[in-house]
């Protein structure tokens, strides 16, 4: 009983922090005038809201189609070069959306793009336009599917092998086992990852604006940029919160009430490796083509810009500091987010009830919001109630945790759902204390969730922009902020060099962290 209270208190503290953006929006909206009502009732507002819903739905579905097979191949099969593919398939997440979209446009844009120039001798004067929904879907899917990939990976690693073995013993084929046993057990992780993709798609501004797709976040930005109207922006942002609530409810239903752990006591046996056989080549080609489109292709375009570039010594000397800064804050954010998410998850999964479920769901509320909204809520909070911390590294890390907590919660929860609670009960009945049980039984078992959660937070933090610009200590620059100012100034070669570093630094971090997953 005592333990449940400790988790309840810890979770409440974490969730209270995560609710700062919402509290701020309600506070801002309290002063709303009548002009705002006009915007809300405008048919156009509704139409662009539907645009965003459509975009989120398509991107989420496509991401699942790409990510689930990739996760299966890289965790469970004898795919050649598995370790390399594990890292390479996750890295597209580090490509900032405005950079990724810009790359796509300059490569396959209708006129004067790299591909169109190549096809020019064949008499092709103009390629079909990618602007609008197709371009937005393409860019979003290519650079966000890893959310589902990483959550599904952690779930596959935690899957009790006894479940599949039982199915095989009952005479089901490998294929039947996959569709009847494995896939249904992946439901919570696909839903959790899908939730992250959907909320990210709703909140992103860079891709819709470059792809000229009329999304809801664009309306919010117009309120800040043109009217300097924080109240109207807050009202619109609240509509996004309402939308996020709907998606949260859907995800909760998709997960269902079924239990996802096996009954076997012998957990943490490595799952059997499935031999791909004649599927080896198609699986390899699928994996390679996704990596080709989402990672090699953008890096090739970056390389193309780099070849034509020359850099000053000063710029090159500055790169090391920027890279160190980026890794430093992202690593810190990943560690803190995982530690903060843990009590929320344990409380929600081990003590399921209205209150604990509500707390866990609440952590997601801010993540459908555009970064600028969350950043301003923390400016308001920090400058008025935490003045000594305002614009320090601590404040910046705090902002990252508020922004990206759901990424850790989602992955850890899927892992946690797969652990049989009787193992913990057994440990306690053998005389082990609560803390000891947590340390010796629970934590080692949810490790895939912790590792993948940390990876997700790291990869998302390293490219974060609005909060970093406003809340970092003055003069503190990261690769992401410098990429932004370079693209803003049309210094594409410099932006390219830094984007490449961002991907490489993330690659090194991923290779270290995925090693942990395997142990």
């Amino acid at each position, binding site marked *: 009983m005592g333990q449940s209270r400790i988790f309840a208190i810890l979770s409440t503290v974490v969730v209270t922090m995560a609710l700062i953006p919402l509290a701020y929006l309600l506070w801002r909206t309290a002063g709303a005038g009548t*002009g705002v009502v006009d915007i809300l009732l405008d048919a*156009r507002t509704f139409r662009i809201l539907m645009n965003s819903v459509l975009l989120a739905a398509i991107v989420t579905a496509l991401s699942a189609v790409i990510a689930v097979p990739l996760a299966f191949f890289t965790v469970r099969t004898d795919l050649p070069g598995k370790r390399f593919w594990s890292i390479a398939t996750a890295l597209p997440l580090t490509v900032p959306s405005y950079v990724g979209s810009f790359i796509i446009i*300059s490569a396959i*844009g*209708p*006129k*004067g*793009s790299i591909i169109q120039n190549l096809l020019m001798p064949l008499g092709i004067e103009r390629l079909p336009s990618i*602007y609008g929904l197709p371009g937005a879907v393409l860019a979003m899917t290519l650079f966000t599917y890893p959310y589902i990939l990483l959550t599904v990976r952690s779930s596959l690693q935690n899957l009790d092998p006894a479940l599949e073995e039982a199915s095989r013993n009952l005479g089901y084929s490998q294929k039947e086992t996959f569709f009847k046993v494995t896939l249904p057990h992946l439901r919570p992780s696909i839903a959790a990852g899908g939730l992250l993709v959907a909320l990210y798609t709703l909140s992103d501004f860079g891709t819709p604006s*470059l792809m*000229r797709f009329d999304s809801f976040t*664009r309306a919010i930005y*117009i309120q*800040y*940029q*043109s*009217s*300097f109207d*924080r109240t109207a922006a807050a009202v619109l942002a609240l509509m996004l919160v309402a939308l996020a609530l709907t998606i949260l409810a859907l995800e909760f239903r998709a997960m269902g009430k079924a239990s996802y752990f096996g009954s076997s006591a012998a957990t943490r046996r490595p799952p059997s490796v499935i031999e791909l056989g004649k599927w080896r080549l198609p699986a390899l080609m699928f994996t390679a083509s996704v990596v080709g489109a989402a990672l090699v292709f953008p890096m090739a375009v970056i390389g193309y810009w780099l070849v034509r570039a020359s850099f000053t010594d000063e710029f090159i000397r500055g790169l090391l500091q920027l890279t160190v800064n980026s890794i*430093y804050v992202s*690593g*810190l954010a*990943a560690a*803190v987010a995982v*530690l903060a998410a843990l009590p929320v998850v344990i409380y929600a999964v081990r003590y399921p009830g209205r209150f604990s479920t509500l707390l866990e769901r609440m952590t997601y509320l801010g993540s459908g919001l555009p970064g*600028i909204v969350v*950043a*301003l809520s923390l*400016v*308001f909070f920090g*400058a*008025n109630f935490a*003045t000594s911390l*305002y614009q320090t*590294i*601590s404040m910046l890390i705090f902002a990252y945790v508020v922004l990206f907590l759901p990424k850790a919660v989602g992955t850890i929860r899927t892992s946690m759902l797969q652990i049989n609670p009787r193992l913990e009960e057994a440990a306690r009945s053998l005389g082990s204390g609560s803390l000891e049980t947590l*340390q*010796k039984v629970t*934590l*080692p078992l949810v*490790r895939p969730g*912790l*590792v993948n959660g*940390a990876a997700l937070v790291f990869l998302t933090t390293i490219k974060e922009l*609005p909060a970093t*610009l*406003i809340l970092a*200590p*003055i*003069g503190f620059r990261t690769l992401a*902020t410098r990429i932004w*100012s*370079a693209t*803003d*100034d*049309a*210094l*594409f070669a410099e932006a390219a060099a830094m984007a490449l570093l961002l991907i490489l630094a993330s690659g090194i971090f991923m290779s270290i962290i995925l090693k*942990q997953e395997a*142990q």
Partner: protein
Amino acid sequence: MKMKRRTFLKYAAGAAVGLSAIGIIRKLFLDAPGGAPTLTIYSGRNENLVGPLIEQIRSGTGMDIRVRYGETAGLAATILEEGANSPAHMFFAQDAGGLGALSKEGRLLTIPDTLLSRVEPRFRSPKGEWIGITGRARTVDYNTSLVRPGELPDSIWEFTDQKWGGGRIGWAPTNGSFQAFVTAFRILEGNGKAREWLEGIKANKPQAYPNNTTIVDALGRGEIQVGFVNNYYLMRFKSENPDFPVAHHYTRGDAGSMINVAGIGVLDTVENRGLAEAFIEALLSPESQQYFARETFEYPLISGVEVEGDQKPLAEIDTPDIDLSNLEDLEDTLDMLRDAGIL
């Protein structure tokens, strides 16, 4: 095995503790009290553009200057949210709109007349709450291999002609500089005419881009043939690639050739007003104004310094007569753009 299993969390906790310690040390080190008073500037102007100049001023005057770079609108909202606790002393904005938003909330202090008088009245706030540092002209940029200069009209109005139809035009309706241009149009020719112009351009199926840079980039690729932009973006492309196939065209005496400014204001949260004024003084010095002309290709605003990069001098542009402080309120413009189905 047991040890190994726990290593990840140990790493995480260890990293958290270790990195926080570094953070605290950094903070102590960074925030160590120095001798000279500090000037903190929030800059909506790009670090690549103004960073070297501020560095020059810092080393030339010995001022301890700290700059936070960001987007003009985001920083204006930040200053408003920070309220009386804002660490910012000055706001250096990309356009008059951001300064207007702060002025409206009573956050800007009056700048002394000795400084204000350095620039023409049309380039500063009538209340003396902000001052223009550089000018930015609206231009019609065009792809030189797709459009002959002779084809280009003297009036912005003529781009509503059908011959500019079929996606030849690029514009950026969500962009602040475009909205300021539409506001100027409304003030100069009335709401009816402005609406008619917008509808006319819309009928020509223009391509909408998020900002000026993407328009110029698309012009270079030939995706569009003409684009409504500010003058200096093209020059940045030209400095990377002198053969970039795009050039300026100026219309005459209408909103198509208006001049907006990037300006600076002193915030009510300033600690040392003298220091802030000295910084404005430094920005208006001939050396700084020459820096802008040479490096950012904007129009210098003090007399005696001319624009560079083969651009038309300020005096030769046939600009409309307009009070920039009237451009602060974009509400009616946004309504018009929304009603016309453009935003």
